[in-house]
């Protein structure tokens, strides 16, 4: 199992609420990613980070925001949840310049349901 953690694992929340999905890794990886994945479907990149104080939007437009204040922590925030945000959110990390360069390690995911 990879050393990358996501909390909560499951979340049911009402429309309009603000939520933060947590992601932490203990491997010291510089790059971190957030993907959105509907069950059994492809992954869509919504945010990524090259390191501390670096964040970029991904290919899929998202109303969420991210921050990277510490290397190990990459939280994703939804200011006002909507039913269209119902999905699974996967966090991943990777490092460059090593023998295992560019392998992505994935967290267990957060399954979000907005009612």
């Amino acid at each position: 199992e990879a050393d990358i953690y996501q909390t909560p694992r499951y979340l049911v929340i009402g429309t309009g609420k603000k939520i933060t999905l947590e992601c932490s890794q203990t491997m010291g990886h510089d790059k971190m990613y957030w993907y959105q994945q509907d069950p059994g479907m492809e992954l869509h990149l919504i945010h990524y980070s090259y390191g501390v104080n670096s964040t970029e939007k991904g290919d899929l437009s998202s109303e969420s925001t991210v921050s990277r204040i510490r290397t190990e922590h990459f939280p994703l925030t939804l200011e006002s949840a909507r039913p269209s945000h119902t999905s699974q959110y996967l966090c991943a990390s990777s490092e460059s310049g090593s023998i295992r360069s560019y392998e992505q390690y994935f967290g267990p995911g957060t399954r979000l349901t907005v009612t």
Partner: protein
Amino acid sequence: AQTVTQSQPEMSVQEAETVTLSCTYDTSESNYYLFWYKQPPSRQMILVIRQEAYKQQNATENRFSVNFQKAAKSFSLKISDSQLGDTAMYFCAFMNFSGTYKYIFGTGTRLKVLA
């Protein structure tokens, strides 16, 4: 823009048999990595195998091997001696060295190994 195509949404194979999952990609880049990831039901995504584009030799990892055809932009995964634990979604992924370190994932192939 790079694209990754997996044309087999679902496949099944008898236990102990061999199965091949297809993946094609499109890119104008010359330096890149290709990956196969496995997502078992309700479990974390893990790396199965990785291929560096500059290497002509096909990667192998125990029962898993790839057929990498760079000119044809094809990257298939062969699973030998299939086991029940191989039942999962399999995603083909592409990453180039253009500086973004973004991964492009295919739509996935759901593989079921039958007893």
